[in-house]
């Protein structure tokens, strides 16, 4: 019983239809199907690995190895929201490191930690292609990835308060 296929039959077929209708084409659907699974389960569970592998007709290992390689997939439950601050060179030159430190101090956590209420995890990440609008971060949730640019400590705290109320 493939729960993913059962619940999202139309979406699964639309994904498979993008690629050649042969075994190589089926394998190409693995990354979009992993996104679908992550949206459904919040992370890519062992069950999800099995479901995706079955749909693509590849081994469990082939699916699992992609989770390790690509940073946007998670194989364990994660906080509801990931606030990911870019601290690469161009952003660092515009104060992104100080911004991240202030934000963490204000929340009473360290980088890569989750707030005690479990709402947000604050992380430092690599370039997000928004270098002219630093400090900036993306908010990753199972449903979406949103950019927030030209941030200040106040604007970031305001957003976190909003996320806490959702």
């Amino acid at each position, binding site marked *: 019983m493939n729960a993913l296929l059962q619940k999202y039959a139309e979406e699964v077929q639309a994904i498979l239809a*993008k690629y*050649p209708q042969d075994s*190589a*084409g089926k*394998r*190409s*659907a*693995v*990354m*979009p199907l*992993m*996104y679908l699974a992550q949206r459904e389960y919040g992370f890519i569970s062992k069950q999800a690995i099995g479901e995706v592998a079955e749909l*693509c007709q*590849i081994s469990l290992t*082939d699916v699992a*190895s*992609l989770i390790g*390689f*690509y*940073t*946007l*997939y998670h194989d364990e439950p994660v906080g509801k929201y990931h606030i990911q601050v870019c601290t*690469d*060179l*161009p952003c*660092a*030159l*515009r104060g992104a490191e100080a911004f991240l430190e202030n934000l963490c101090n204000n929340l009473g956590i360290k980088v890569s930690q989750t707030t005690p209420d479990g709402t947000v995890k604050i992380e430092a990440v*690599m*370039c*997000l*292609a*928004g*270098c*002219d*609008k*630093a400090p900036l971060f*993306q908010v990753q949730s199972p449903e*979406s*990835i*949103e*950019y927030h640019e030209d941030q200040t400590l106040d604007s970031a705290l305001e957003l976190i308060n909003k996320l806490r109320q959702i």
Partner: protein
Amino acid sequence: MMNMTDHVLLRHRDIPGLEKIDAYRKNGGFEALRKVVTNLDPDDVTNEVKASGLRGRGGAGFPTGLKWSFIDGHNWPHYVVANADESEPGTFKDREIMEFNPFQFLEGVAICAYAVKANHAYIYLRGEFWHIARKLDQGIAEMEAAGLLGDKLFRTNASIHLHTHLGAGAYICGEETALLESIEGKLGQPRLRPPFPPAFGIYGKPTIVNNVETLTNVPLIISRGAAWYKGIGTDKSPGPKIFSLSGCVNRPGNYELPLGTTFRELIFDHGRGIPDGHKIKAIMPAGASSSLVIANDEALATRMDYESVPAVGAQLGSASVIVIDDSVSIPWLINKTVRFFKHESCGKCTPCREGTYWMMHLTERISTGKATLNDVKLLQDVASQIKGKCLCALGEFSIEAVLSGMERFPADFEAATTHLAP
């Protein structure tokens, strides 16, 4: 200086609402696609692009029409892939195109597909561009509904389908063969080249991979002609280029300027110079992959095109100009760039995987004042041993700032180490 009211790529800055299909059509949109599909042979399209002198905007500067002409006509089907993985620190131009002038880009992809006789084209976006992929999906659906994509296009036998494909957070997938592996559902690790993608691409089939900005040039080359295009920029580097300006500068942002514009004009006229009374110290013309250029009068007078930048010891690359002021310590800077490459190394080849690891630890030690001059020497050794030995350009890029920084800013390294005996 080009008249800034006449953008070629960032046309949305002149025409409000251009991201909507109706506005795009009212402003001549899709006429180039109609013209090529109904009136031109595929080879004529390739020849027009060749004649325009357009060179790849992703970084390598390879002549686009020439690349298209390399497609292997004895192996079918053909594919087109648009590289929208934009992940180089300092680069944020493709994002602006896709968000605000998406149809010019999609039209460019479709024209390329026609020229190389591909029925399917994939747009590979970095996973963080999730919201852009959704917008492009919607745009593709609108084009299909309007008869601008699909089978029997404009009542001919042409068939062109576009699809988005999201990456998932791996810089290396901007490398074209790693990108192809990723589309195939595999780890994004580069392939040994040759064979090159026009002979052996996705699924082993001939594939043309072009950057978003490159393809966005194509509709206007077709509708206005190669001769018009050659009138912009320099002889060997024709056309407009989007310069992503970032770092220590008053007005960072994207600036569309002719190739051959000087660093001084970009940084001081458009970017309004250096903030907080600081002085410019160095320039990285090609993002984190770039050599550090000493920002003296000679460098500032240098024209930003594929031929001129090498004269000051760097490459134009994707033209992501990062400005460094005199408050920045070069050991700190190279620790930042090396840390990036260490994180993004795919792990396939040893010089890059191990080399970036050791460079990260050495630059960490140097930038925090815990190193001796021997460590600086060791860093130079490690970097030199990476040089020329990697499977793809990522490893090679990781040493550009390191070696040029040590060579051109030795005082910064002496200052970071002198208080400890060697």
